[in-house]
């Protein structure tokens, strides 16, 4: 099992912090400290457009394509505490002119660290060093964004947010060493409830990713400064009966709106230093990257046991790697060398 | 005359201008009028009701009076009464005082009148009601009276005068008045009887202490607070009578937190210590001691290892501390012998307890006592007698204790007292220090350093045997620490030897030198440890600070060199290090050189070199040019320092040996080698060149120089004559030397013409001749001869002749390149060894550069490269920036081409000029920023050319700090930062540091 380099996207003149792959179209977006977002066509590998025109005064830290809408659009989070929304109404991908800045969203007090769209494109979540997570409701043509809820649960800088691919469940990772999960309140649509706290990491949690299996939330992976990746399993959600292995004695009175999670396992430890990004692929594999410049892919043997099937050091030379995303059986990594690399999993 | 007088009076009374006192005074002196007439003429004005008129009238009288030296007694008396009367009139007070002052300073003024003057001033003059300027006149009056009539005052008016002074000076605020008030107070207190006024006089001054005065911005007179402080201080020191009031009051001010106030207090005390008599001091010394001892005991003495370190202290708090130390040094000077014993007993009563090594006030107490001990011998002996026994019985348990004990002992080692009680404790001190020196724990470097310094300080009372053992210990220490040059103990020991080898060279000669030289591997050593050789020789070079040592070291190094040669040792660097050490010794201590070096060392090196370089084939240095060259450098250095009268002999010997192949003190032909450079060309020419270039040009050659030159030219024209390039260069150098020193321009012209006519430029063997012509022309360029221009032109024209075009840049480079044998002897201005005009370089470039630029522009593409090569070659030899500054603008286009070249050597000379251009006139490169920066960044990545990388980084740095506007540099900022990341991991530390500095400049570009 090894990785082969398919293509290297160049052009950024500073660290590349994050990437995003459009769920339907062959579009790749990358954001960097050089304050630009570069959009590529994943098939032709050619640069489509550089979203720049000084819309942001500081580093672009996060990006994510909106999963829905007739035309492709994306959200960019920046250290200048604002979010910019870009779209291409003509849907003519190659032509770079018609990518337009559709909205600038202000609200956070300082650096934004993460942005993520809900599976149905209705909600956009953003997190920042100001310890808050804002949940915005977007109209279809991305003109107005209305903040429906501000989550103030974390006690420190929130590093990353991501939605479940089917349920409206949001996972947030933070400098306070915890992962928190949030759900829409059944009765009040605009109220988001902290349904679970996953504690155990002994350092900043840099990112998390849901298992891509089934309709309902099943498991979540989280990577941390403490050099470990933890797999969390949901026992039963607050609003339905306990899930199959209800060994729990009924006497334990469960708080009505709390989901029950437990630490399932810790992936085999191989990274040295902080692990900045973890991705759970549809193929069931988990991939991680970090300060040690190593790409690691884990395969599940049984529910408690994972095996490292790939461990490739110096994937971006001596540079740290900030982000990894699955794209089918392919991986996309972004590093401090400003490069974005597309890898093929050679089984 | 009256008419004239009244005219004057009416004139100045009506107008604003000053009265013509000059003319009036002249008239009075010439007796044309009398002062009384003046008073009469002023008449009514003197009593006019308007104050201004009265004041001007009195002013006229006073100022006139001031210009007169003598008056008859009667007039004086009348005028005195007049002025005394006027004292009632406040409006004219100022001029009245001026008048009284003028009156009292008259030669025949009758002092008897003083009493009435003084009493009326006391009664009628009320200072508070007058401005500062008027009050100033009152002080001037008293000062004049004091200066003119001191004896009379002492005899008759002592008390009155003091009272008047106190009257006029109380509550004075004006700085100028205070200055004169302080000086009067000082004079009065130190000369008059002030017993019953002591307290008043003291309070009169002490109310101003401590002075905190900031001169107002537009103050008319430049009085600084320092002047007031010193003036006031002198009042307190004027008489011991002030002691009883001064000490308690001033010591109380010591508690102030401001260092400036404390400093003022201490400086005042120190001044009083000098002037007060012994009894007063004896009465107050204890109060002083108790008030100040904590200034020392509570000080952590952070940076003080020796008493000498106190002088180096500089912060504001340190100045206070230094003043306290000065006080403790001066105080005991005032003690009589029995007072010393009594007072020290009292002090030691308390301090004894602190004298234990581990006590937290140990160092402070020892410092305090040792400072007092420096006051005078009797105090020193008593303290040493009391303190040392206590110190020496206290057994140090830890390394820190040992260090503290050694420091304490060192405080008491005082070379100012050759014979003192210290010698009684010499042996014990020696034991403690030697133990510390040899202590195994290398960790405690400060202990060893202190012991080293103390032992050196102690040497003045050690006998020869003891000194020898100290020096041998230090020598051992040198050997054990020399491998790490940064080791503080090594540096401390080496430092100690600079003192020892100057004062006790013979001991160093007998103990240290043999020990060091024994470490040098000899001919029988299996393999040579070059690092050891380098360390030993480095020490040897650094400890020879006396003639005796220098002479014997050079002799011994030469003998080591000779033994190695005979022993067939093959490590070339070893020979080179030995010769280089000899060279360094001779160049570091030129003043110690003497004639016997010429008589002894030169012949020894010459014959040694000839035998081993040329004669004995199995010698390790046979045909080794680097060794030959280094030996030559030593010879040249010696000759350059030789007096003029010996030069002729040395030259003749060299000519005998090298040209005539005959015997000379330098080399005896009996050894089987007859050298004749002119016929059989051995490679020893470079040795002969060292002789010829060093001697004065006024010494004629024994043989006809033109003959020698012609034969040398014939030999050198044909390059096949030579076994090596080095040999050929030696002959070319010799040709240039001869031409410059001994041949006339016309003879040289003949030779050059003859050569240029017979030369066939198309054939390749013309190269040899061209090169000979170039070196002859070089001698002309050096002496700035008009002929040089002609042949410079000739070589320049060769650029256009294809067969020799590629060679002519080299030939032109020869004309200007610096060669060490052709340099002026800078060691001794009186001896002129070569005809070298100062501005020859400037002239060469001023002619050559425009021609190159013009030639480059007009030549076709093919030969552009040749012009660029020529420019880069000659630019290598600029060395003084002034020469090139004016040309920078014109040669820039060519420079931009040169830095594109792949030939590292020419590229680097281009980069150096580019750097100079950016630094001196950065606007020139503004239009080319893009191409320059990208080329520089490319060169920083070429790891095969270390100098290129450094030069490129230096240029980038120069651009970053230049005055090129930020807007122009901004676009390049990120590219430069990103592209210099690679050079951060360069294998050489200095390149990495340079890269870091460059990047820091560009990171900060945004901020500036």
């Amino acid at each position: 099992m090894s990785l082969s380099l398919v293509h290297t996207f160049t052009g950024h003149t500073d660290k590349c912090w994050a990437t995003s792959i459009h769920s339907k179209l062959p579009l790749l977006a990358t954001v960097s400290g050089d304050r630009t977002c570069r959009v590529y066509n994943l098939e032709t590998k050619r640069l489509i457009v550089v979203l720049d025109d000084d819309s942001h005064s500081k580093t672009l830290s996060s990006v994510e394509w909106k999963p829905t809408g007739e035309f492709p659009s994306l959200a960019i989070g920046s250290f200048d505490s604002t979010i910019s929304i870009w779209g291409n109404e003509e849907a003519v991908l190659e032509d770079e002119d018609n990518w337009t800045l559709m909205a600038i969203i202000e609200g956070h007090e300082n650096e934004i660290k993460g942005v993520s769209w809900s599976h149905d494109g209705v909600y956009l979540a953003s997190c920042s060093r100001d310890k808050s997570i804002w949940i915005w409701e977007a109209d279809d043509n991305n003109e107005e964004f209305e903040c429906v809820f501000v989550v103030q649960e974390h006690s420190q800088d929130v590093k990353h947010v991501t939605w479940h691919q089917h349920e409206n469940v949001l996972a947030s990772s933070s400098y306070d060493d915890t992962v928190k999960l949030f759900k829409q309140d059944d009765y009040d649509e605009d109220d988001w409830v902290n349904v679970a706290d996953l504690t155990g990491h002994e350092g900043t949690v840099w990112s998390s990713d849901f298992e891509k299996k089934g309709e309902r939330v099943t498991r979540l992976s989280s990577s941390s400064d403490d050099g470990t990746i933890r797999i969390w399993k949901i026992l039963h959600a607050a609003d339905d009966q306990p899930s199959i292995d209800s060994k729990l004695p009924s006497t334990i009175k469960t708080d009505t709106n709390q989901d029950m999670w437990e630490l399932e396992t810790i992936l085999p430890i191989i990274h040295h230093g902080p692990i900045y990004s973890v991705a759970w692929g549809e193929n069931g594999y988990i991939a991680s990257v970090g300060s040690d410049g190593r790409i690691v892919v884990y395969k599940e043997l049984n529910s408690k046991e994972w095996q490292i099937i790939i461990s490739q050091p110096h994937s971006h030379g001596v540079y740290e790697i900030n982000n990894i995303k699955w794209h089918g059986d392919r991986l996309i990594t972004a590093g401090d060398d400003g490069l974005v690399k597309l890898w093929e999993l050679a089984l | 005359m009256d008419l004239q007088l009244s005219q004057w009076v009416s004139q100045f009374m009506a107008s604003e201008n000053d009265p013509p006192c000059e003319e009036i005074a002249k008239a009075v002196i010439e007796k044309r009028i009398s002062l009384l007439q003046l008073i009469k003429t002023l008449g009514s004005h003197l009593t006019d009701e308007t104050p201004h008129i009265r004041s001007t009238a009195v002013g006229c009288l006073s100022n006139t009076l001031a210009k007169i030296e003598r008056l008859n007694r009667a007039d004086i008396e009348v005028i005195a009464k007049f002025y005394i009367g006027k004292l009632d009139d406040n409006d004219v007070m100022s001029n009245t005082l001026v008048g009284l002052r003028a009156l009292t300073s008259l030669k025949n003024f009758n002092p008897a009148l003083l009493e009435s003057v003084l009493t009326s001033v006391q009664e009628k003059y009320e200072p508070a009601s007058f401005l500062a300027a008027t009050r100033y006149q009152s002080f001037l009056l008293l000062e004049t009276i004091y200066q003119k009539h001191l004896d009379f005052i002492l005899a008759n008016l002592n008390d009155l005068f003091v009272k008047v002074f106190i009257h006029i000076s109380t509550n004075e605020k004006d700085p100028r008045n205070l200055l004169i008030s302080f000086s009067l107070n000082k004079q009065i207190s130190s000369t008059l009887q002030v017993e019953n006024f002591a307290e008043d006089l003291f309070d009169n001054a002490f109310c101003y202490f401590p002075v905190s005065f900031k001169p107002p911005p537009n103050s008319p007179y430049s009085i600084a607070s320092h002047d007031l402080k010193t003036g006031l201080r002198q009042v307190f020191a004027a008489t011991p009578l002030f002691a009883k009031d001064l000490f308690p009051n001033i010591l109380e001010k010591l508690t102030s937190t401001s260092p400036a106030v404390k400093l003022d207090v201490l400086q005042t005390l120190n001044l009083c210590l000098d002037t007060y008599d012994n009894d007063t001091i004896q009465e107050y010394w204890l109060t002083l001691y108790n008030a100040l001892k904590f200034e020392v005991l509570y000080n952590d003495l952070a940076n003080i290892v020796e008493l000498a370190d106190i002088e180096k202290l500089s912060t504001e708090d340190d100045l206070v501390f230094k003043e306290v130390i000065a006080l403790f040094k001066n105080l005991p000077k005032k003690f009589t012998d029995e007072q010393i014993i009594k007072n020290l007993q009292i002090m030691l009563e308390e301090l004894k307890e602190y004298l234990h090594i581990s006590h937290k006030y140990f160092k402070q107490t020892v410092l305090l006592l040792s400072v007092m001990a420096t006051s005078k011998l009797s105090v020193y002996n008593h303290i040493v007698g009391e303190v040392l026994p206590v110190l020496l019985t206290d057994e140090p348990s830890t390394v820190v204790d040992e260090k503290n004990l050694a420091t304490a002992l060192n405080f008491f080692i005082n070379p100012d007292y050759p014979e003192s009680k210290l010698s009684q404790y010499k042996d014990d001190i020696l034991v403690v220090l030697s133990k510390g020196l040899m202590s195994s724990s290398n960790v405690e470097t400060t202990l060893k350093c202190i012991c080293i310094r103390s032992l050196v300080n102690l040497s003045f009372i050690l006998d020869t045997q003891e000194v020898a053992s100290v020096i041998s210990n230090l020598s051992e220490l040198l050997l054990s620490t020399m491998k790490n040059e940064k080791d503080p103990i090594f540096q401390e020991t080496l430092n100690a030897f600079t003192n020892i080898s100057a004062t006790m060279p013979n001991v160093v000669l007998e103990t240290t030198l043999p020990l060091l030289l024994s470490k040098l591997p000899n001919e029988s050593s299996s393999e040579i440890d070059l690092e050891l050789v380098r360390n030993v020789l480095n020490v040897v070079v650094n400890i020879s600070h006396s003639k005796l040592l220098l002479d014997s070291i050079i002799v011994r190094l030469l003998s080591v060199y000779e033994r190695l040669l005979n022993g067939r040792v093959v490590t070339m660097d070893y020979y080179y290090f030995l010769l280089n050490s000899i060279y360094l010794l001779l160049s570091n201590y030129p003043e110690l050189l003497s004639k016997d070096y010429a008589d002894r060392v030169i012949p020894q090196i010459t014959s040694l070199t000839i035998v081993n370089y040329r004669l004995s084939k199995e010698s390790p240095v046979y045909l080794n040019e680097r060794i030959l060259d280094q030996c030559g450098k030593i010879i040249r250095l010696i000759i350059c320092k030789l007096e003029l009268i010996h030069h002729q002999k040395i030259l003749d010997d060299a000519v005998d040996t090298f040209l005539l192949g005959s015997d000379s003190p330098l080399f005896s032909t009996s050894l089987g080698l007859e050298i004749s450079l002119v016929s059989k060309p051995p490679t020893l020419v470079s040795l002969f060149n060292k002789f010829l270039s060093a001697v004065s040009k006024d010494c004629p050659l024994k043989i006809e120089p033109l003959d020698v030159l012609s034969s040398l030219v014939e030999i050198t024209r044909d390059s096949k004559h030579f076994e090596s390039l080095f040999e050929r260069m030696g002959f070319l150098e010799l040709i240039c030397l001869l031409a410059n020193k001994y041949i006339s321009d016309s003879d040289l012209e003949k030779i050059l013409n003859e050569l240029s006519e017979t030369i066939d430029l198309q054939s390749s063997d013309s190269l040899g001749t061209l090169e000979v012509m170039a070196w002859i022309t070089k001698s002309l360029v050096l002496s700035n001869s008009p002929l040089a221009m002609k042949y410079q032109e000739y070589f320049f024209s060769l650029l256009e002749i294809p067969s020799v075009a590629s060679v002519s840049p080299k030939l032109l480079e020869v004309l200007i390149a610096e060669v060490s044998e052709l340099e002026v002897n800078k060691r001794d201005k009186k001896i002129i060894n070569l005809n070298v005009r100062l501005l020859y370089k400037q002239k060469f470039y001023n002619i050559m550069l425009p021609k190159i630029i013009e030639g480059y522009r007009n030549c076709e593409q093919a030969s552009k490269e040749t012009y660029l090569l020529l420019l880069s070659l000659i630019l290598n030899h600029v060395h003084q920036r002034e020469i090139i500054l004016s040309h920078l603008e014109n040669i820039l286009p060519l420079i931009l081409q040169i830095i594109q070249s792949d030939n590292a050597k020419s590229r680097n000379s281009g980069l150096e000029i580019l750097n100079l251009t950016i630094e001196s006139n950065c606007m020139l490169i503004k239009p080319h920023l893009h191409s320059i920066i990208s080329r520089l960044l490319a060169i920083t990545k070429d790891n095969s050319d270390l100098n290129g990388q450094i030069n490129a980084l230096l240029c980038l740095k120069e651009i970053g700090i230049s005055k090129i506007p930020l807007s122009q540099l901004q676009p390049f900022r990120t590219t430069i930062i990103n592209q210099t990341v690679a050079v951060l991991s360069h294998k050489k530390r200095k390149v990495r540091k340079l890269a870091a500095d460059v990047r820091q400049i560009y990171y900060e570009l945004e901020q500036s």
Partner: protein
Amino acid sequence: MTDLINAAPKVLNVDQLPTREGKEDRIEQSGYLPGLLSLSVFNVPFTEKSSPGSTPALSDSSLQSDDEEFESVDALEIYDLISSISDPEHPLTLGQLAVVNLEDIQLDDSGNPNEIAEVIIKITPTITHCSLATLIGLGIRVRLERCLPPRYRIIIKVKEKTHQSENQVNKQLNDKERVSAACENDQLLKVISQMLSSCK
């Protein structure tokens, strides 16, 4: 900074601090000979024709030896880079204030330019509750990130038991993202460039 947080820090004077600045070899190699020979028209590198026998003795290796030798990065080099940073509060350097000391710098570096290396620096704040520790740490990190190649992972910690909130400070100092955010904050950048202005 009206009231100095630490009014009387203990000061080492500059020449007591270890440094490699300005130390050159002692007995230098002779550079003279190659210079003269290069002037010759017959010098081999210049003309294609072989010169009449270039002397072997000249090419002995000791002349260029020190150009090839690889000088690896050591703790002293790191110390030289950061000891001249000035304290944000006193007109003194971190070296003089013994905030950074040679023995508190640990280097884990194979020397291979393609491998990741680690620099661990322990700082000793002048007083235990010094709020400037994070600022000093940031200054050191920015200086090293600018001066060392990217393969060096820089870890800055407060020396054990020398600071009340030791862990929080360590965490903040080594959060890569917050550090790069700080480098885009204007006030902080001004302070940092002030601290680095004294670097020589």
